[in-house]
């Protein structure tokens, strides 16, 4: 079970959270002005990166706040969590580890 660092509460176990998909996809100001194809992309098209991925998370069984997180989709490491509205932090691709047995 992952430990997720809620920006408001601190580290809490994964079961308290709910993932809300890719972050930084803003709802258009005036949706009716958006072309069909663009609206389709907004609704349905998401990146599926190997490596760092910015995601929305809800601390539903905690403070009830939404926030964003940078998660490494390979190692599941949470590289950063940050408040809604803040820009995506500038981080290098990083994985969780560590000392080696070599």
């Amino acid at each position: 079970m992952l430990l997720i660092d809620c920006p408001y509460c601190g580290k809490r176990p994964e079961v308290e959270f709910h993932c809300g998909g890719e972050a930084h996809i803003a709802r258009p100001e005036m949706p009716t002005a958006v072309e069909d194809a663009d609206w389709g992309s907004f609704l349905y098209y998401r990146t599926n990166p190997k490596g760092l991925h910015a995601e929305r998370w809800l601390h539903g069984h905690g403070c009830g706040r939404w926030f964003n997180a940078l998660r490494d989709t390979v190692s599941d490491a949470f590289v950063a969590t940050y408040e809604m509205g803040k820009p995506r932090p500038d981080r290098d691709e990083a994985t969780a580890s560590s000392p080696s047995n070599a």
Partner: protein
Amino acid sequence: MSQPFRRPSGGRIDRSRPLAVTFNGKQLEGFAGDTVASMLIASGQHLAGRSFKYHRPRGILSHGSDEPSALLSVDWRADRGAGYRDPNNRASVVEARDGLVVNTQNHWPSLETDVGAVNDLLSPIFVAGFYYKTFMWPRKFWDRVYEPVIRKAAGLGEAPEVRDADRYSNRHAHCDVLIVGAGPAGLAAALAASADGEKRVILADEGFEPGGALLNDVTSEIDGKPAMAWVAETVATLDARENVVILPRTTAFGYYNHNHVCMVERVSDHRADAPEGLARERLWQVRAGEVVLAAGSHERPLVFENNDRPGIMLAESVRAFVNRWAVLPGNELVVVTSSASAYRTALDAKAAGMRVSIVDIRLDADCGTELSLARDGGITVRTGHTVIKALGGKRVTGLVVAPISANGSIGEKTTLACDCVAMSGGWTPSVHLFSQSRGKLRFDVELDAFVPGTSAQAERSAGACRGVYDLSAVIADGAKAGGGSSTPQATVSFAGFQPVRVLPTDADATKIKAFIDFQNDVTAKDIKLAVREGFESIEHVKRYTTTGMATDQGKTSNMNALGLVAGILDRPLPAVGTTTFRPPYTPVTFGALIGPARDELFDPVRRTPIDPWAEKNGAVFEPVALWRRAKYFPQAGEDMHAAVARETKAVRTTVGIFDASTLGKIEVIGPDAAEFMNRIYTNAWLKLKTGGCRYGLMLREDGFVYDDGVVARLAEDRFHVTTTTGGAPRVMRHMEDYLQTEWPDLDVFLTSITEQWAVIALQGPNARKVLEPFVSEIDLAEDAFPHMTVKTGYVCGVPCRLFRVSFTGELGFEVNVPADYGEAVWKTLYEKGQKHGITPYGTEAMHVLRAEMGFIVVGQETDGTVTADDLGLSGLVSKVKTDFVGKRSLTRPDMVAEGRRQLVGLLTKNPDEVLDEGAQVVDDPGQPIPMKMIGHVTSSYASSNCGRSIAMAMIDGGRTRIGETVFVTTPAGFTEAVISNAVFYDVKGETVDA
């Protein structure tokens, strides 16, 4: 039974504390510090069970958690009744104490005489893949004949038949360094890691005494002291450090993401005096900054004919029994080995008084100093020899051995009489946890073993679990892994071995049983057969032969199986690969995994304030989301159909009373509340007057219906929103999502008030008459309180939000009172309503009544692909608002396309026939399969008010096809139905608007 094989002195047992265990009905004697295995050996009892497939007599192979054979059923608290017994406990790790009742498994009628042993004689047919090949035809025999027979014949212990009566607890812990294993490496690591008092250190070991392999060691010295004195000093130092937690009897069984390690601590099984109610086991979920794995290694058995006879044990285990437990596993010992370490066993056993000889597969030149030490000690050593087979049945009586010549031929055979064999084929590092952590293994040719390669998490392995075997090196390695250093002077260990897979023999290899996997009864010939049949991947060989798939996870068998496959295929071992190690490392009880999460703590039941009344009045309940709701209230002799017919009739003719407390309720408060509602719902809200109600429809951004419910405006800045029962949490989440992430500028607060209000619905022509006497500060007159309005006041003197709403089409009120008053208000209304024939009704009647009116239920008529227009509800979608959630999607081409599935009614030709919900609809039942489905039934009921069955359905272009005949699937075939409008009941008399 007395203890004829107990040594007169020595061992790590407390002779001042004798104890007794019941074994197959007989009394076994022993001392504190014993395991059941050491007590069995003390009594001379080696036969400890029957094997999985062939029912072969089996003894004790090992002294640790890798034991594959001596599996016992243990009744931990026989004095407390049933519910304390579990099967398949390894005798070698069951700590002895007074009161244990243990029994051997998998035999009938007795351990000594087992009818199932005939399988051993029939073994030529029980080859690898036997089940796949034999039980294929006929199909109908699969579950009726084959499975019951196989299940009865195979297997080990019996699953308990009663509920586990024990308690289990769990606990989360955080530390800077978690060390798994309290052998020399783990102790050294703990010592180093905890030197900094700021570092929280947890040291866990599966045994009940720290020391690991040093517990078996009476000859090694560390810095001039006996090894166990070093252990005692180290443990004392660690004990004195406040930043160290030592957990004995605690097995780390799973290594997950983010250094999350799960461990199970055996809290009370070893305590005769454990008070009732003390947890049996505790699950530890540890989050560690760093993990040091010091898990040790497993000895490899040697593979020769009848290598499973009781009395044949791993060499280190013989040493452990002799030294640690002061029991002799026999009088006449033959040590068979390709490993130097077994010489220590020979020397210690001889010192303890056993007659010992050694058969070494290696040539003199390949041996180290151990050889001359043994010979100088007066032990006969036959080097360059092989074992042809073991003699004896329920106990080994001899070994047939022979020299191997340079060209590999077998020389003259000699029979060595013996009652105990200590075998060693070398060592396999325990890389289970490392592998579980997703670390990559590396094959080390020198060590003939897979060792930890690249780590995937903040973790290090130390000592024997990464192939470091010499004691000084092990301690130094542990200290380094703990972040320090140490250069101890310790006795040089006998290390190194020559890998052998199957011992050379001149016997017909297809006729003999030389076991690789003892627990699953897999022999060398099974593996050979699998390879011959084309299974080359070790993952396939494993599944086909089941080698390594038993509860011991192949701890003793994996390397022998791998090596054999690699040898047959003539490939380097790493090319054959290794199988995946998965949790748990050793079997874990379900009790420990679930802890206190049983019954309602696992699956909570939400009850409404009126639930006690419903229960007392004979309600039949159904689960709705986590709630239990009254489904109907049968009277004597009524089935559901009759009860629902009566309840629905009462609502249409007089008055019904219904518990609607489970409706989701959210209060939307703030200066921007109306604007927020305007954006979240399809309807227009800005103009809704205070005191007004509106049926609200909510879409997802993709334009599909998400939820619905009545919303009341209580004040300019306050809305009381209701949602579907099941939808309450997701609607709240949906609203919060938009509020927090898209419109943080809106000044609005959302509060879930579902459980604050009990909701009592009064529905029917006499609803007002029932309610009127109890209402104060509210005028119920039609003009003053029309349909779809809300007022606050008092009912029965209790503060109330009174809604004039209807989900039945009849005159209706929903009485919202604080939850604590719900039952009292309900009882009053029910009792005083008797003169009007007030009838409690449940969810089933509620469904029928709403379907009679064509009212939808989100989640029943809708499935996430249905639009408002599909439901005929486009009137609820504002054309004026420039934006709301889902609006843009409504003009996407597919959403406005012709022929979308639309909500209609279906009337069966036979009015008594009730369609199945979910049934498919076709135009022509004669068309070839696959048929074109044109829709499905969403709701279907027998309606006594309509005098016939009614159904709602989603049909392609349904609204344009009213009056047409279609065919609906039934269990018997098809039935005819006519498409109709989805409103079935013509409300008479005083209705919603009267």
